[in-house]
C-alpha cells in the first residue's frame, strides 16, 4: 500500500500487505497470517537448496547496490570450520528512503524470519541486525519480536526444534550514514569508528570479526520468506520489463507530491503512471520539476527522463539515473535546485568518515561553493571548479560516498545549468581571511 495512503489497485502488496495493521506486529498475529511457515520449511531444506531457490528467483539487493542475493549467499563457503555471520543492514539513512522502518515497525517478525532463513542458508549461527539509533520504534518492535521468538523456541540453540542454533542480536547504531556501507557497518558492530574498509578482502572471505560474513538489506531479507513459501517462479514472474529485474519493490515517495508514502510495485512499472496516478501527481497548483528516483546518491532526472522510465535496475540507468534504494524524492517548480543540491552536498560533508582525501576535503569544499552560489556570491569559475572537484571525487576512493556527493552536482549542473547561472552575477571574488572553526 502507499502507506499511509490506501492501497491502489496497481500496487502489488507483498512486503507491505500488513503496513498499518496492528495485529501482525506480535508473534501470534504474524503466525495467524502464515508467519514462520517459511522458516519451518527452510530448516527442512539444505542451505544449498535455499541458496538455489533465492538465486532462481532473481532477488537483487534492495539496499541500493542491486547485487543478486542468491549469488552473494553462494560466496559463503560451507564447512570451512569458521564462524559465519549474517548482518542485516537496517541503517536506512539514504535521504528519501524510509521503507525498512515500515517493514520493521509493522512486520518485525517478517524481518526476524528472513534473517533466520538467511542465517541458516549461509551457515551462520549468529545474525546482527544493525538498526540506526534514530529508529526508536523499529528498535522497540524488532527487539520485542526477537524476544517473542526466543520465548517460543523459534530462535536460540534449538531453532524450531531442529537442533540448529540461530541467534539474532540487535545492534543499535549511533548516528552515522556511512554505517550503511557494508564494511563500515561491520566496523561499527566491532566497536570501531564507522570507516569503510578496503576491498579485497571481501566480507565473504574476511568480514565481521575477520570471519566470513554476508550483509543484506532489510527489504531483501523480508522478501525471502515469501520466496520460500511461494517459490522462485512466482517471484520471477513478477516482472514488467527487464527479466533481470524481478519481484516487487517498495518505493519510498517523498518531497513535493500529493501522496507521499511507501508504494510496492512490480519492477518494470511505468514511472509516469507511478508518479501521476498512484502518488497523485504534484501538489495542488504546482508542477513537477525534477525527481531523484533512488535516494540522494543517484543522478537527478528531468521530468522528461522520469516520464520515460520503466522502474527497474536497467530502466533507470537507461534514463540517466539509477534505481538505488528506491527513495523517490520529487521537486516541484517552487524549489531551487541550487539550494537543494547545496543541501545535499552539506549532507555528504557532514557524513564523510574522513579517511579519503578527496571525500574529506571535496565534500566540504563543494558545499561551500554551492552555498556561496545559493547566496548570490558565486563566480563564473565556480561551475568549472565544481565539476573539477566532482571528477576528482569519482572512482578514486575507498567507498562511494565521495561519488555520491559528486553525482547530484554533476547531474544538477548538466540538467539545470540555467538555475546556477541565474544566481551567478560576479566574475571576480575577493577572498576573506581564515575562519576559526
Amino acid at each position, binding site marked *: 500500500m502507499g502507506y499511509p495512503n490506501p492501497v491502489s489497485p496497481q500496487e502489488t502488496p507483498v512486503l507491505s500487505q500488513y503496513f498499518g495493521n496492528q495485529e501482525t506486529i506480535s508473534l501470534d498475529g504474524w503466525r495467524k497470517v502464515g508467519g514462520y511457515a517459511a522458516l519451518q520449511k527452510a530448516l527442512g531444506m539444505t542451505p544449498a537448496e535455499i541458496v538455489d531457490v533465492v538465486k532462481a528467483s532473481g532477488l537483487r539487493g534492495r539496499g541500493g547496490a542491486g547485487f543478486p542475493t542468491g549469488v552473494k549467499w553462494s560466496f559463503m563457503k560451507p564447512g570451512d570450520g569458521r564462524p559465519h555471520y549474517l548482518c542485516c543492514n537496517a541503517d536506512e539513512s539514504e535521504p528519501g528512503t524510509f521503507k525498512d522502518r515500515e517493514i520493521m515497525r509493522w512486520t518485525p517478525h517478517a524481518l526476524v524470519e528472513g534473517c533466520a532463513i538467511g542465517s541458516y542458508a549461509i551457515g551462520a549461527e549468529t545474525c546482527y541486525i544493525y538498526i540506526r539509533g534514530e529508529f526508536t520504534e523499529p528498535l522497540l518492535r524488532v527487539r520485542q519480536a526477537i524476544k517473542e521468538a526466543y520465548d517460543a523456541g523459534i530462535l536460540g540453540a534449538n531453532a524450531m526444534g531442529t537442533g540448529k542454533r540461530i541467534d539474532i542480536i540487535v545492534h543499535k547504531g549511533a548516528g552515522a550514514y556511512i554505517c550503511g556501507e557494508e564494511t563500515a557497518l561491520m566496523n561499527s558492530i566491532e566497536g570501531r569508528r564507522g570507516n569503510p574498509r*578496503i576491498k579485497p578482502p571481501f566480507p565473504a572471505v574476511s568480514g565481521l570479526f575477520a570471519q566470513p560474513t554476508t550483509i543484506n538489506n532489510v527489504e531483501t531479507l523480508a522478501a525471502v520468506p515469501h520466496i520460500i513459501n511461494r517459490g522462485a517462479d512466482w517471484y520471477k514472474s513478477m516482472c514488467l520489463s527487464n527479466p533481470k529485474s524481478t519481484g516487487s519493490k517498495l518505493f519510498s515517495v517523498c518531497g513535493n507530491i500529493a501522496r507521499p508514502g511507501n508504494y510496492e510495485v512490480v519492477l518494470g512499472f511505468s514511472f509516469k503512471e507511478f508518479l501521476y496516478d498512484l502518488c497523485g501527481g504534484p501538489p495542488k497548483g504546482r508542477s513537477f520539476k525534477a525527481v531523484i528516483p533512488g535516494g540522494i546518491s543517484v543522478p537527478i532526472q528531468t521530468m522528461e527522463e522520469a516520464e520515460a522510465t520503466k522502474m527497474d535496475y536497467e530502466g533507470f540507468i537507461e534514463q540517466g539515473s539509477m534505481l538505488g534504494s528506491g527513495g523517490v524524492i520529487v521537486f516541484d517548480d517552487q524549489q531551487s535546485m541550487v539550494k537543494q543540491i547545496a543541501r545535499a552536498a552539506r549532507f555528504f560533508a557532514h557524513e564523510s568518515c574522513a579517511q579519503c582525501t578527496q571525500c574529506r576535503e571535496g*565534500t566540504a569544499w563543494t558545499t561551500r561553493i554551492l552555498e556561496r552560489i545559493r547566496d548570490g556570491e558565486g563566480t563564473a569559475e565556480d561551475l568549472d571548479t565544481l565539476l573539477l572537484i566532482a571528477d576528482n571525487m569519482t572512482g*578514486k576512493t575507498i567507498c562511494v560516498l565521495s561519488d555520491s556527493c559528486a553525482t547530484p552536482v554533476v547531474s544538477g549542473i548538466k540538467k539545470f545549468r540555467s538555475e546556477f547561472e541565474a544566481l551567478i552575477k560576479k566574475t571576480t571574488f575577493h*577572498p576573506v581571511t581564515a575562519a576559526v572553526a
Partner: protein
Amino acid sequence: MATTAQPTAPSTPKMVTLTIEGRQVTVPEGTSILEAGKRAGILIPHYCYHPGLPVAGVCRMCLVEVEKAPKLAPSCATAAADGQVVHVHSEKARAAREGVLEMLLINHPLDCPICDQAGECELQDYTYQEGPKELHLKDPKRFHPAEDFGGDILYVTNRCILCTRCVRFMDDVAHDTVLNVEERGDRAVIGVFEGKEVTNPWAGNIVDLCPVGALLSKDFLNKARAWEIDRAPSICPGCSQGCNIMLETRDNAVVRLQPRPNDEVNKYFMCDHGRLDYRWIDRTDRVQFPLVRDGQSLVATDWDPAIAAASKAIAGKRIFVAASPNLSNESLFLLSELMRAGNGTGAFTVPTGPEAPLPGVEDLSLRADRAANGRGAETLGFRRSANPLDGMNDGDALIIADCELDGIAPEQLARTGSVVVIGTTFPQIARMASAVLPTANFAEDEGTFTNLRGRVQRFTQARPAPGVARPMWWVLSDLLTATGRTDATFFLASDVFAALGKSHPAFAGMTYDSLGLRGAIMAGAEGAR
C-alpha cells in the same frame, strides 16, 4: 639423535612478474604494486603507506592505472599480479594525484617559511614534482589552533593531512593507543585524551613518520633548516640495541638524531631515550690539547712529547685499563694489545636502566645496558664489573680510557704506579696523571660497535674533533709503537679493523665493505650464519 633429520627446503614463495612504467619486475606473490615499484626503481608517490605500519589506503595518493582494470588502483593496497601492466605516470594517474594534492593544499596553511618540515616535507616534494599549477579555492581555509600532545610532541593541527601514520604507529607498533582520530569529514583531527599525554618511550617516531610539519619535536623546534643539515650514518650509543641512526649536525653542532632503517636491528625506529640524548656530544669540557706533567702542574704540549711521556709512564709496569663501554672495537682492540703487552687486565662498568620494548617489532627494545659496545668490550677481554678498577693491582700503570671513574675514591688512585688519561674529558679524580691524551668521541671518529646480539655495525664521522684531539685508536697506535711494537702503525680505522679480524676469530673475515650499513653478526654469536 639417532635418526637422520629430513632435509627441509626453505619454502620458496610463488613469484609474479609485472610491468611498471615499462620496466619488468619479479616479486613474491602478495607484494603490493607500490613495493614492486620500489624494486623496479620507481617511487610511487604516497603518504599514508609506510613499510613499518599496517596498510591503510586512505590518502589516495598512490593511485595508479592498471591496464584492463575499471578503476585506478591504490598501489599500496593492491597486490601485484602476474602479467599486470601498471602506469604510474599516465595522464589519468597524474590527474588523480594532482587532484589529491590540490585537496590537501586547499586547507593546508602556507606555513613553509616558519615550518620545521620545510626541505624534508613530502607535501612540498610531491607538489613541486607534480602538483596543481593553481589552486581553485576561493573560500577561506579552515583554522585549528596548535596543540601540545605532551612529552616532546607538538601537533600543528592545521598542517595535518590525516594520513593516520601516527595513530597506526602508536596502536599497532607501540601497543599504546594514545592517539585517535576525532570527529568526521573536514572536521577530523588527530587527538589525545586530556590528561593522557603522549609520553610513550617510542613516541618520537611519530615525528619522523609525519610526512608534513603537523607533528613536531619540541626539542628540534626551529633549530635548523633541513637543507643546512649535514648527515652521517652512525649507531646510537644510548644502549646495547645498536639502533642505526643518522647523526645530524648544523655547523658541526649536533642538532638531531634520527633512526636509519635496518631490518635486522631497529626496523625504522629508535626510542626517545636515545633520540633525545645527544647534547653530551657537544659538551664543552673536552680535553683539546695533550697535557704532560711538569712538577705540580700539567702543561699543554705537542703530540710527540705527550706520547713519549705516556710511554715512559707505563713502561716497566703491569698495565690496568679502566675502559668505557662506549669505545669502538678498534680502540678496545688496541687497548687490549697494550694490556697484553703489560701483562695486565682491564674492566668496564655499564650504567643500567629500565628496559622499554617496542612491542610491535621483534627483538627491539631500549636495553638495560645503557652503552653501545659492552659486548665488544667483553669480546675483547675486558671484565664487566660494578667497580671500574676491578682487577687493578697496587703499582699498576692505570690507563683511564675515556672513563669517568664514577664511585671511585681518590685514595684508590693513590695506590697506582702511574696514571695516564686517554679520552675525551679529564676526570677531576685523575689530576695526578702523568699525561693526558685527548681523543675524539664517536661523532668525530669512524669505527664499529657490537650490539647485544653480536652484530658488528659501523659508525662514521660527522664532524671534526675539537682542538688537536685524535681518534683513540690512532693515539693507541702511536703509544704501542712507542712501546716497541713494529706492526702497530695504523693510519686508517679500517686497517685496525683488519688487524682485529686477524687476531680475533669472532671478527674474522669482516671488512668495512662487508659490513656496509647493515652490519654483520660475529662468528659464534647466536644468529650467526
